[in-house]
C-alpha cells in the first residue's frame, strides 16, 4: 500500500513538474523580438546528422555561405542576418519540433529548409499557420508549396524535371523501351519516376519493367538482372548519387551496356569517383553545372572550394540561392513582416541565382531551366538547357 501511495506521489510530482515547465513557457511572446536591434533572425532546419546527413550538410554549407556573403556587404535593410540552424537528424517528427522552436522561441522571420520533401511537408503547415515565409532549397514534391501562400521553393518540381528527362530520352536519344529503377523509400524518387513514366508514355515510348530499391542498399544485382532480362534501351534511375554510382557499376558488371539516366539527385562530386567508367555516356538533368563558365558560378565554386575543400553540389548551390532570394525579397518588401515578404517572394522575377535565372511562378515554385549533363572522360559535360 505504501508502494502505491509512493507511486501516486511521484506521479503527482511529475505532473506538477510538467505544469511548471508549461508555465515557464507562458511569458514568451511570439516573434516580437525578431528584429531587435540590428539583427534579422532567419531559421534553417536541415538534416545535419542521420541517414541523409550528406544532403543536409551540403545545403547548410551553401546557405551559410550566402548569409556570410550578405553580412560581408552590410546585411539586409542595414541589419546583419543571424542564421539559426537546427538539426532534424533526418528523422520524421523532428522538423515539427525544431520549426516550432525556431518560430516561437527564437522568433525568426523566415525559415529555410528542407531538402527532403517529406520533412518540408511536415514543417510547411506550421510556417503557414504562423505566416512565416518558408523557402525550400531542394524539395521537389509539388505538394510542398500547395500548403499555402507562405511556402516557396528555389528549385523546379518533379513534374517539370520528369517531363524534361522523358522528352530528352525519347526525342534526343530516341529510346523506345526503357526500364525504371526507383528508390521506394524516397518520395523524391517516386515522384520523379511517376512523371517520367507519364511523359515517356505520352511521347510514345514504352516502360518495359519497373524495379525498386531502398536508399542505403548496396546490392542491386537482383533488380538489374531482372531488368536485363527485359532488354530495355535504357534505364531511368531517379535516385541519389549515393546509390547511382553503385548501380551503374553493377549494371556494367552484369553486361548491361545501355545508357543510364536520371535526375538532379545524381549531382555530386562523389558520383564519378564511385561509378567511374561505368557512368560514361550517361545523362542526368540538374539545376546547375559547376562547369558553367558564367563568372557568378565560377566565383561561387572557387570560394566554396576554398572554404570546404569540395566542389559544391546542387544542394549547396540551391541552399545558397534559397537564402539569396529570401534576402532579396526582404529587401524588396522593405520589412520583415511575414505577409509582405511572402508577397515579395511571390513577385521574384529573373533573380540571378547560381542555379539559373529564378522566377517564382503562380504556384510558388521556381520557374527555371533545367540543364542536362553527360559524363564524358570522368567529367560532367554540358549537353543542353531546357527552358520551362
Amino acid at each position, binding site marked *: *500500500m505504501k*508502494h*502505491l*501511495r*509512493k*507511486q*501516486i506521489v*511521484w*506521479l*503527482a510530482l*511529475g*505532473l506538477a*513538474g510538467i*505544469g511548471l*515547465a*508549461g*508555465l*515557464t*513557457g*507562458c511569458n*514568451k511572446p*511570439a516573434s516580437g523580438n525578431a528584429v531587435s536591434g540590428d539583427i534579422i533572425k532567419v531559421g534553417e532546419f536541415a538534416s*545535419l*546528422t542521420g541517414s541523409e546527413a550528406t544532403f543536409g*550538410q551540403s545545403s*547548410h554549407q551553401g546557405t*551559410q555561405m550566402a*548569409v*556570410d556573403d550578405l*553580412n560581408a556587404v552590410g546585411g539586409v535593410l542595414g541589419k546583419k*542576418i*543571424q*542564421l*539559426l*540552424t537546427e*538539426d532534424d*537528424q533526418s*528523422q*520524421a*517528427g523532428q522538423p*515539427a*519540433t*525544431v520549426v*516550432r*522552436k525556431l*518560430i*516561437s*522561441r*527564437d522568433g525568426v522571420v523566415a525559415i529555410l529548409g528542407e531538402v527532403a*520533401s*517529406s520533412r518540408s*511537408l*511536415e514543417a510547411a*503547415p506550421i510556417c503557414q499557420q504562423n505566416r512565416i515565409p518558408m523557402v525550400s532549397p531542394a524539395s521537389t*514534391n509539388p*505538394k510542398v508549396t500547395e500548403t499555402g501562400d507562405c511556402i516557396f521553393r528555389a528549385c523546379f518540381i518533379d513534374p517539370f524535371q520528369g517531363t524534361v528527362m522523358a522528352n530528352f530520352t525519347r526525342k534526343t536519344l530516341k529510346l523506345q523501351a526503357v526500364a525504371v529503377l526507383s528508390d*521506394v523509400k524516397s*518520395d523524391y524518387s*517516386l*515522384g520523379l519516376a511517376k512523371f517520367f513514366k507519364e511523359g515517356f508514355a505520352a511521347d510514345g515510348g514504352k516502360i518495359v519493367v519497373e524495379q525498386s530499391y531502398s536508399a542505403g542498399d548496396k546490392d542491386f544485382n537482383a533488380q538489374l538482372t531482372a531488368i536485363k532480362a527485359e532488354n530495355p534501351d535504357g534505364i531511368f534511375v531517379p535516385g541519389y548519387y549515393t546509390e547511382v554510382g553503385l548501380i551503374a557499376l553493377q549494371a556494367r558488371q552484369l553486361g548491361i551496356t545501355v545508357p543510364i539516366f536520371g535526375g538532379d539527385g545524381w549531382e555530386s562530386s562523389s558520383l564519378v569517383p564511385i561509378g567511374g567508367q561505368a557512368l560514361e555516356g550517361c545523362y542526368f538533368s540538374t539545376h546547375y553545372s559547376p562547369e558553367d563558365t558564367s563568372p557568378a558560378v565560377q566565383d561561387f565554386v572557387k570560394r566554396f572550394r576554398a572554404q570546404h575543400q569540395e566542389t559544391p553540389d546542387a544542394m549547396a548551390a540551391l541552399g545558397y540561392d534559397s537564402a539569396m532570394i529570401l534576402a532579396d525579397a526582404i529587401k524588396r518588401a522593405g520589412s520583415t513582416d511575414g505577409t509582405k515578404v511572402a508577397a515579395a517572394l511571390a513577385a521574384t522575377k529573373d533573380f540571378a541565382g547560381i542555379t539559373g535565372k529564378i522566377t517564382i511562378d503562380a504556384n510558388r515554385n521556381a520557374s527555371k531551366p533545367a540543364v542536362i549533363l553527360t559524363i564524358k572522360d570522368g567529367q560532367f559535360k554540358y549537353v543542353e538547357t531546357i527552358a520551362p
Partner: protein
Amino acid sequence: MRFQHAKLALLAALGLSLLVSLVANRIDPYVLFVLYNIGIYIILAVSLNLINGYTGQFSLGHAGFMAVGGYTAAVITNQFGALNPFASSALFFGALLAGGLFAAVAGLLVGLPTLRLKGDYLAIVTLGFGEIIRVIFQNMDLVGGARGLSVMHNYTNFFWTFGMASVTVYVVITLVHSTYGRGFIAVRDDEIAAEAMGINTTKYKVTAFVVGAFFAGIAGGLYAHSTQFLTPGGFNFMQSIAIVVMVILGGMGNTPGVILAAILLTLLPEGLRWLAGIEHLPGIAKMHPLGWIGGTRMIIYSLLLIVLMLTRPQGLFVFTMKKAKGTS
C-alpha cells in the same frame, strides 16, 4: 482502499489536464508541443513497460504499433472536414479508439507467434515485425507510402494527451497490481515455474502485447494529430529504441520510474538543442559550421546510454525495495 486511491488519482489527473488545456493558448507553442510529446512518450513507455518490464517479453518493435494507430486515426479523421468542437472531440475519441483497436490486433498478430521465444530471439523477432509493419506502410498507397500522409486536423491538445496518459498509467498499474496481474510478474520471474503452478502463460503474454499495443496505437493517433504529417520512416527501429531506452532507464516494471524517464528523455534533446543554441552567434565565417555540440548530440546521447547502463543498470529511478529480477 488501494483502488479508491487509484481512481481518485485518475480523476484528479483528468481534471487537471482539462484545466490546463483551457489555458493552453497562453503557453508558448513550442513548449506546448514538447509537452504533448512528453505525454505521448509517457503513454508509449508505460505501455511498453507492461510488455517488457512486467511480463519480461523484450519487444523492440513498439514503433510498429504506434504506426498502426497513427495511420488508422489519421485516415479516419481525414475523411471529415471542419467540425464543431463537440463533434470533433467525439470524432477524435473515436479515431483514437479505432487506432488503438487496430494496433491491438497487430499486437495479437505479433504476440501469438512469439510465444515460444525468449530473450534475444524475441527481441529480434519483434524488431522484425516492427520493420515489416514499416515496409507495409511504405508500400501502401492509401497512406501515401514514402510520400507521407498529411493529417488535416490538429486535434491533439493537453487534455487528450495527458488525459490518455493518465488513463494508460491507471490501467497498467491497476492491471498489474490486481490478483490477475500477478500472473504477468510470474511469467517474467520464472515462466516454467508459473506454468507448473497452473498459470496460463500464453494468455498473459498475449494480453500484455495486446494491451501494450492498444495504448501505443493511441499514442500514435495523438502523435499524428499534433505533428500532422506521417511517414513510414518515422516509425523505424530508432523510434522503437528510443522507447525501449525509456523503459530501461526508468527501471523495468517500475511505472513511476518509467514515467520520469520518459519525461527526461523527451526533454533531453531539447536541452541539448538549448545548449547548442548558445553558440548561435551572428553568422560570420565559422570554422566548423555545424557547431561542435550540434554535431555531437547523438554521440552524447549514446554515451549517456552506455554510462547509465554501466553505472545504474537497474534504472535511474528505482525507489521501492523490490529487487529487479533478471530475465534469462
